[in-house]
C-alpha cells in the first residue's frame, strides 16, 4: 500500500481536524497517511531532510524560507483561524475593553501582569513576538515568562498562574473544559492565522511520494476538502475557515 508521510504541528493534530480530513482521502486514493505531529521547527526540518513527503504548518515566514531553500514546491493556502489572547476571567488589566492586540499587549506590559510565552519559535510564538515588537515592549522583565513548551502545556501553565497568554483558538477550545482562562481579546486582523501545505520538492529529495503529496494538496484544496474544513467544529464552534476556494463555492 502507498504511504504518505505528513509532518504537521501538534496544534493541528490536536484539534481533531485531520481525523475528519484524512480518511476520505485515504479511501479515494488507496493510500495510508501517516501523520507525524511535532513542533513547527521540527516539522519543517523533517521536510527539509526528506523524512516527510508533505508538511502542513502555520508559520508563514519559515514556510517561505523552506520554499526559497528549494526544499518545498507548490505551497497552497488551505485555511485560517485566529489567535486569541487569554487571561483570567476577572481580567485585572482590562484588555477585553481594548480594540487591538497591540494595545492589549502594551497594557499587560504596563501593568506588569504575568504573561506566559511559548518561547519555542513556533508559528504562534513568532506571531506573538511580532506583536510585542510592534508594541515596543522590553521582554526581559520577570513578568514575562518563557515556558518553552507546547501550546496546551503553556495554556495550562497560564491557567495555573492566572496569567495572560497568546494562543491559537483551536487549542484553547480543546482545553476550555479544564481551565478558567477566557478569551479576553480577539478579532484584530493582525491575529489572522493562515495554514499552508507544502509538498517536499522531488527535485531535491527524489524518493518522496510527490504524486500522492500533490494529490493530497489537490484534495484539501478541492471543494470536498474545503467543505470538510468548513463543517468541522469542535466544542460547538467552527475552528477553521477554508480559504483555498472562494466561499460561494462551498456547499453546506
Amino acid at each position, binding site marked *: 500500500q502507498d504511504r504518505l*508521510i505528513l509532518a504537521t504541528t*501538534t496544534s493541528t493534530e*490536536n484539534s481533531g481536524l485531520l481525523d475528519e480530513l484524512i480518511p476520505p482521502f485515504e479511501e479515494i486514493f488507496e493510500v495510508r497517511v*501517516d*501523520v*507525524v*505531529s*511535532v513542533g513547527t521547527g521540527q516539522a519543517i526540518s523533517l521536510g527539509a*531532510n*526528506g*523524512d516527510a513527503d508533505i508538511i502542513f504548518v502555520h508559520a508563514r515566514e519559515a514556510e517561505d524560507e523552506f520554499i526559497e531553500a528549494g526544499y518545498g514546491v507548490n505551497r497552497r493556502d488551505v485555511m485560517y483561524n485566529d489567535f486569541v489572547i487569554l487571561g483570567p476571567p476577572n481580567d485585572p488589566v482590562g484588555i477585553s475593553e481594548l480594540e487591538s492586540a497591540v494595545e492589549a499587549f502594551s497594557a499587560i506590559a504596563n501593568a506588569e501582569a504575568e504573561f506566559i510565552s511559548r518561547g519555542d519559535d513556533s508559528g504562534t510564538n513568532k506571531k506573538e513576538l511580532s506583536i510585542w515588537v510592534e508594541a515596543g515592549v522590553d521582554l526581559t522583565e520577570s513578568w514575562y515568562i518563557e515556558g518553552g513548551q*507546547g501550546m*496546551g*502545556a503553556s*495554556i*495550562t501553565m497560564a491557567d495555573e498562574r492566572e496569567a495572560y497568554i497568546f494562543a491559537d483558538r483551536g487549542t484553547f477550545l*480543546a*482545553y476550555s*473544559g*479544564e*481551565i478558567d482562562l477566557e478569551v479576553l481579546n480577539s478579532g484584530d486582523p493582525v491575529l489572522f492565522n493562515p495554514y499552508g501545505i507544502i509538498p517536499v520538492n522531488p527535485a531535491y*529529495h527524489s*524518493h518522496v511520494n510527490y504524486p500522492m503529496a500533490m494529490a493530497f494538496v489537490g484534495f484539501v484544496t478541492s471543494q470536498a476538502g474545503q467543505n470538510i474544513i468548513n463543517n468541522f467544529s469542535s466544542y460547538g464552534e467552527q475552528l477553521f475557515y477554508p480559504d483555498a476556494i472562494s466561499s460561494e463555492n462551498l456547499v453546506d
Partner: protein
Amino acid sequence: MNYYSEAFREAFNLIITLDRELLNVVATSLRLSTSSTIIASTIAVPMAVIIARKDFSAKKFFNVILNTLLSLPTVVVGIFVYSLISRRGILGEYQLLFSSTGIIMGQTILILPLITALVRNTIFSLDEKLYKTAKSLGATKKQQFKLLIMEARYGIIGAVIAGFGRVLGEIGISMMLGGNIRGVTRTMTTAMALETNKGRFSFALALGIILLILSFTINFLVYFLQEGEHYEQR
C-alpha cells in the same frame, strides 16, 4: 480536581470494552519493548561478563563510560538514531524512520548501558571460587559461561526487568523515531503524551494505569517462574 476516580473509570471502561485502538497500542508497546529488551540483553550480558572478568587496559575507562551512559537522555539517543536513519543519514535508504525498527534501534541503545552495568555489578559480587570450581568440574568455555549465567540469574533477571521497565515507560525515543503514528507506531506512552497535550489528563492517567497493570502482570509471571526455584532462599 478528581482525575483519579475519572481515570480509573476510564481505564476500566477501556479494558472491559476491549477498545480496539487500545489493544493496538498495547500490542505495539509490548512488541517494541520486548524486542528491544531481548536484543539489548543478548548483547549486554556477554559484554557485562567480559567487562567484569577480563583484564584489559582500558577497563577502568570503560567502566566510567558505562556509568556515564546511564544518564543518556532519550532525546540524545533519538537524535543520534535519527541522524542515522533519516533520509539523509547513512541508513536512509532502508526507510527505518517512523517504523518499529527505528524505535527498537533507539530503545536498544538506551538500555544497553543499563543492563550491561547492572549485570556487571551482579557478576562482580559473585564468589571468586565459582570460576575455579566450574573449571575443575570439566566445563568447556561455553559451559563455564552458562554456569556463570545460571549463578547470576537472579541479578540478570533483575537487570532485564529494569531494562524492560525503562523502555516500556520511555517516551522520547518512541516519539521522535516512531512519530506516534496512529495504528503504526503509537505506543502506550506516546498515546499518553498525546492525551496530555490535548489536556485530557484523566485519559492519559487511564492509559498509565493500564500500562502499570500490564507491567504488573508481566512481572508477576516472571516472579512465578522464579518461584519454582525458591527465590527467597537467597
